């Protein structure tokens, strides 16, 4: 108990001053003059608007990525005491005094700064020398594009941070696997791997590729573990279970947690409500909830309702009708019923109200003029007979056998009784005679489930007659429930995630957009900000020396790897076994990290920019010193060759530093360059550096 009386408590700490020094210079490079420029720089205009929504707790929908990244930026705003009052409308706009620019940019800058010591740690954990590790860290430190990207309120540096953290903690974990499995630090690093992976995915979807890579490496290691016959079956099972929990279960839970916090924070209705379902909207404060509050839950005969299409594409809309009739003859010469039009209208309107009538007592059910018109060759018919106005109701998401049509919650299909056609939003716009409203048709051919055939009641009320008022009271009081409580977190999460993934942005062109092929050779650049008067500007440009040598190193790695692999197959072992294993692991993580963060962009159909390449580039930078060290240790035959090679490396690194220094005015935007200086920096025609003309 009182052991400390007998033996003093000792704290011994190994402090690697290299790491400390690297951290300090990393912080310096990223935090220096962080609040400059006090103006909106490039995509800050994009993230800023969501930041303001967080500050005001207004719900929004953004298809570009999961909410964790946005929330981190919002955390910076929260810590800086930002009230969200800023109009994010223009790049270059001056920040007003209430915007805490420094704290908004702090988190990305910290993430960028910490990537420097982490690069050191990764290369060290991969089993290479301190020299190589320092080299990797210095490359990350001086790379202009990484500096620019981390000093602004953008998410790439955060993504890179979590990618590196995932790789680093996995390496720490697998290194402690050999000596101390199931120890506290083993557990810590294993769980941290899973957490870092989920954070990376939570910042941007592309983080999933690094996650898959780590999973792949972990799977190979686990397979080798299964083959280890010195371990008992129970022990192997324990290992596998621990990995499954930490690398599969933990990330999923974390991902759900991000959304949970996101939805808990954003509780007020806002401009993006319309895209969500009625039930989701009703769960937000204000907006639809205010209208639907207290309205009867169960739809009865005589109810007045508005019907919203569940699919809501191309725009959310309500079933609508108006006095105008279909034209006698359509443009393509087909005849029409010349009856009253039924459309889908994207605005609230008194003509969106419908009365549900009991077919047993009334001949005419609502002013529905059952109608469909030819949209494409698949929907090719035209029904319009006066007595055909009965529709059968099918509740799609019936949870129980009760089968009551509930406001907002029930999703229904309306099936025309005579022709068994299903009421559907075709997605086409009617011509001028239909006032460009959306076309509604009876779909007869395809009976499979599709959301465009599903509708739900949004607003609901009874008529004013005495009898109905009584019925309203009767229905109202016992079954009235709070709809927002009916919608579980999982339901809201699934809906939000689905809408985020299917949200399509149509703007595919941008002045600075580029293709993945441009990135490797640095054939593109992005202008981020220009000083309103002088030529001072921030321009996303990489250090071309580093980019070229990183690509060369990757190529050299692949060629060397294939060469060794083929020779090993013929039983010629050039490398000792442990060097070979190190070489393979470094390649799997670094070259693999580059490949998984780069190649998928070839298949993506969205606007791409140079900064999308930065995560891949970071992995290349880790590989570069590994290849250099390998060449020096294994390929230089004599001391002379080695010395020459070292001199070459020093010269190369000096030139890289020089280039970074030359690009510094564009990286930090702190110094105004004259047009001739700018022109001198334009080493490639494709670099679009802004030059004032006067």
């Amino acid at each position, binding site marked *: 108990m009182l052991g400390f009386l007998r033996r003093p408590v000792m704290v011994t700490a190994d402090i690697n001053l290299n790491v400390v020094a690297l951290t300090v210079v990393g912080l310096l490079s990223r935090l220096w003059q962080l609040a400059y420029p006090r103006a909106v720089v490039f995509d800050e205009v994009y993230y800023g608007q969501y930041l303001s929504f967080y500050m005001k707790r207004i719900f929004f929908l953004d298809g570009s990525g999961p909410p964790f990244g946005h929330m981190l930026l919002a955390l910076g705003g929260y810590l800086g005491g930002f009230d969200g009052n800023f109009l994010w409308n223009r790049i270059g706009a001056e920040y007003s005094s209430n915007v805490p620019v420094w704290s908004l940019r702090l988190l990305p800058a910290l993430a960028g700064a910490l990537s420097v010591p982490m690069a050191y740690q990764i290369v060290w954990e991969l089993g290479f020398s301190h020299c190589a590790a320092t080299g990797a860290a210095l490359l990350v430190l001086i790379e202009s594009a990484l500096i620019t990207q981390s000093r602004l309120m953008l998410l790439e540096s955060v993504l890179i941070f979590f990618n590196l953290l995932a790789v680093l903690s996995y390496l720490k974990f697998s290194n402690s696997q050999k000596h101390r499995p199931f120890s506290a630090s083993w557990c810590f690093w294993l769980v941290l791997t899973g957490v870092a992976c989920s954070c990376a995915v939570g910042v941007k979807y592309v983080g999933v590729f690094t996650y898959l890579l780590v999973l792949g490496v972990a799977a190979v290691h686990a*397979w080798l573990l*299964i*083959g280890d*016959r010195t371990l008992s*079956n129970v022990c*192997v099972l324990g290992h596998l279970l621990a990995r499954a929990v930490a690398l599969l279960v933990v990330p999923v839970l974390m991902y759900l947690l991000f959304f949970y916090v996101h939805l808990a924070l954003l509780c007020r209705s806002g401009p993006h409500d319309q895209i969500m379902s009625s039930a989701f909207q009703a769960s937000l404060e204000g907006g639809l909830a205010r209208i639907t509050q207290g309205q009867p839950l169960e739809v009865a005969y005589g109810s007045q309702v508005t019907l919203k299409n569940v*699919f809501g*594409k*191309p725009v959310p809309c309500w079933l609508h009708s108006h006095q105008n009739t279909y034209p006698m003859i359509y443009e393509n010469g087909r005849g029409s019923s010349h009856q009253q039009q039924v459309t889908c209208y994207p605005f609230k309107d008194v003509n969106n109200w419908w009365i549900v009538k009991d077919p047993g007592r009334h001949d005419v059910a609502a002013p529905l003029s059952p109608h469909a018109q030819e949209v494409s060759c*698949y929907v090719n018919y035209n029904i319009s007979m006066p007595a055909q106005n009965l529709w059968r109701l099918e509740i799609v998401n019936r949870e129980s056998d009760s089968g009551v049509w509930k406001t907002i919650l029930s999703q229904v299909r309306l099936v025309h009784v005579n022709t068994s056609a299903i009421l*559907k*939003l*075709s*997605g086409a716009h009617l*011509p001028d005679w239909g006032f460009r409203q959306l076309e509604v048709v009876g779909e007869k*051919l*395809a*009976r*499979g*489930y*599709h959301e*465009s055939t599903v509708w739900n009641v949004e607003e609901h009320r009874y008529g004013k007659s005495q009898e109905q008022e009584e019925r309203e009271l009767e229905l109202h009081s016992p079954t009235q429930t709070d709809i927002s409580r009916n919608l579980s977190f999982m339901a809201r999460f699934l809906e939000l995630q689905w809408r985020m993934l299917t949200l399509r942005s149509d*703007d595919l*062109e*941008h*002045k600075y*957009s580029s293709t993945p092929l441009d990135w490797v050779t640095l054939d593109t650049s992005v202008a981020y900000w220009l000083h309103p008067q002088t030529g001072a500007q921030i321009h996303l440009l990489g250090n071309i020396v580093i980019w070229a040598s990183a690509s060369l190193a990757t190529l050299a790695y692949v060629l060397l790897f294939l060469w060794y692999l*083929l020779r090993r*197959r*013929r*039983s010629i072992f050039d490398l000792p076994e442990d060097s070979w294993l190190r070489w393979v692991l470094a390649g799997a993580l670094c070259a693999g990290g580059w490949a998984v963060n780069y190649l998928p962009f070839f*298949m993506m*159909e969205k606007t791409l920019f140079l900064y999308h390449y930065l995560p891949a580039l970071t992995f290349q930078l880790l590989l570069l010193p590994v290849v250099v060290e390998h060449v020096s240790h294994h390929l230089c035959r004599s001391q002379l060759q080695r010395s020459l090679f070292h001199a070459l490396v020093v010269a190369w690194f000096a030139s890289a530093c020089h280039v970074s220094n030359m690009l510094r005015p564009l990286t930090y935007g702190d110094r105004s360059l004259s047009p001739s200086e700018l022109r001198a920096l334009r080493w490639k025609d494709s670099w679009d550096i802004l030059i004032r003309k006067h």
Partner: protein
Amino acid sequence: MPPAVGEGLAGSELRPRGGRCGSQAARAVSADVAAETTARSSKRSAPGSRRFEAAGQWALLALVTLMSFATRFHRLDQPPHICWDETHFGKMGSYYINRTFFFDVHPPLGKMLIGLAGYLSGYDGTFSFQKPGDKYEHHSYMGMRGFCAFLGSLLIPFAYLTVLELSRSLPAALLAAALLTFDTGCLTLSQYILLDPILMFFIMAAMLSMVKYNSCASRPFSAPWWFWLSLTGVNLAGALGVKFVGLFIVLQVGWNTLSDLWHLFGDLSVSMVTMGKHLAARILCLIVLPLALYTATYAVHFMVLNKSGPGDGFFSSAFQARLAGNNLHNASIPEHLAYGSVITVKNLRMAIGYLHSHRHLYPEGIGARQQQVTTYLHKDYNNLWIIKKHNTNSDPLDPSLPVEFVRHGDIVRLEHKETSRNLHSHYHEAPLTRKHYQVTGYGINGTGDSNDFWRIEVVNRKFGNRIKVLRSRIRLIHLVTGCVLGSSGKVLPKWGWEQLEVTCTPYLKETLGSVWNVEDHINPKLPNISLDVLQPSFPEIMLESHMVMIRGNNGLKPKDNEFTSKPWHWPINYQGLRFSGINDTDFRVYLLGNPVVWWLNLLSVALYLLSGGIIAVAVQRGARLPAQVEGLSQVLLRGGGQLLFGWMIHYFPFFLMGRILYFHHYFPAMLFSCMLTGVLWDTLLRLCAWSLASSALARGVHALGILSLLLGIAYSFYLFHPLAYGMVGPLAQDPRSPMAGLRWLESWDF
């Protein structure tokens, strides 16, 4: 190894012995086991029984083939009208017979074979194949259907032989054959004029020859080895030549070849020279030969289709000059563009058309109220423009002046011939595309302002700085704003006569929408040359037609509000495709897999992963398996693994595809899935049998299991056969329908 596998069952079995090459799995077995095997088998197979076995095998193969042909050719003539995509492929067959040029997103081989079959069977190409449901009447269609059914029937013996080769087990092969024979989906798809039976034929043939050649690995460079290797190459060319999804079997064979070479490379007894020979043989048979054949199909395609037809507009002007009947064919025009020439300018993007203007203004509120400039797909007088120098207005056709050619980088003016207005652009937003500038016709009688000046640039190969008709690809760059003339491909509203929008884009990215070529060219001062010299070479034609096909494929995008088939629907047989008929009075054919077969396949994949996983982990943990189980697990892991890989590679890529997908895309994967089921159940039953003590009981369990599976499948086919052979009468949701009890899923509409 194989006799050791099922020793308990051996007596009841007919064992394949005919092949001159050993089983592929046999390679893996250690020498002493092999020796033991031969000793035992030689003991068992006396000459008489061997002859009996061989005869039995042939008889079985004949039986399988007969069943297959009988089911496929039964009621082949029904219905005597166009079903589903017959309207496309029948029509394309007719195009070959009529030799008219057309465009399709698939490579030509399949349609060429359909055309050939039609031609040989006396079809004259006069039927119009307008829309599904049209009666064939007196036209001969049975030749084409018969050809497809013939290839479709061969799938089953191929599957039988493949499984036999992989598992060395007749019951497994029989099971796989039965699954395919009695699958209504495979049957339906084989009975009509479609590309799918042809595609599946080549895929299965490639798979069979690959497996056969794997079995010959112990005797490299022997005649059968060469035969099967080159046959694999031929079939790969066939598969790729029918549809681009044939690429998946190419990948599978490629993977197999790589792993094969990797094994050889690790074998130190194989010298590097031999290794080089191996490599060269693969390159020759699996790369050079297929490519040559694939190219040959295109050569035939272009040779046969030499008349102008509905596909001309998809191709470039230079290409069209090849086609008889096209206005560019045998035409003669001046070769190099000169000032004063009257020209038409065609956009290089597919289906955009010619630069066009007409006497209508942009309406109020849409940019400046000046004359519209659009693109128009049809040939018209309003497509004619005169090319002039930017700074002089003198008539360049004045015979006293020398001819001056337009050169790369010149600054020019384009005057619309009919209205004498200049092509003009300015800082007004384009009518439809945001951030692009509006393009108008401006000025009176050719006098405008500096916004009418364009710099002409050649994008591709320079012909001595001059601009060559048809061949030079040009960009027109607006001098004042620096933007590029292009077409967005968007359809203008009614005020623009539903022609396509022309804009000036400030983004200088090179896209085909902003590249143009000169097509018609009139200049009396220049000598005309025959267009034949401008005709593209064969490699250029190949490249162009591939670009057009790829773009066509990418253009097939699903619409948001339509029901579309999703890849996850397919293996669960979620929804079929209507081949013919909708109403209860129609003759209805519905493409739907036999649910018993499909769901058994689905279960088998799961079971396979489970059992394969258990065995693999057990081996990795160093468990010592008994010899028989060892043999069976080799069949499961190697043979089954190849089939599983085949299923995956023919199925999973569809999840990544952006184009519109249909249910029938799953059928190549389904073939592999059926074969896997055959191998899996036979192996599992053998494993069950092995675990039983008495050999009689074991034999009984195995035989009973296989037999009950076979009978169950046959019975389910009896239930579902009207789907394929056609049904008339009430729909299945009607309780009076004979199919009423069979609508097991809500989503089936038959």
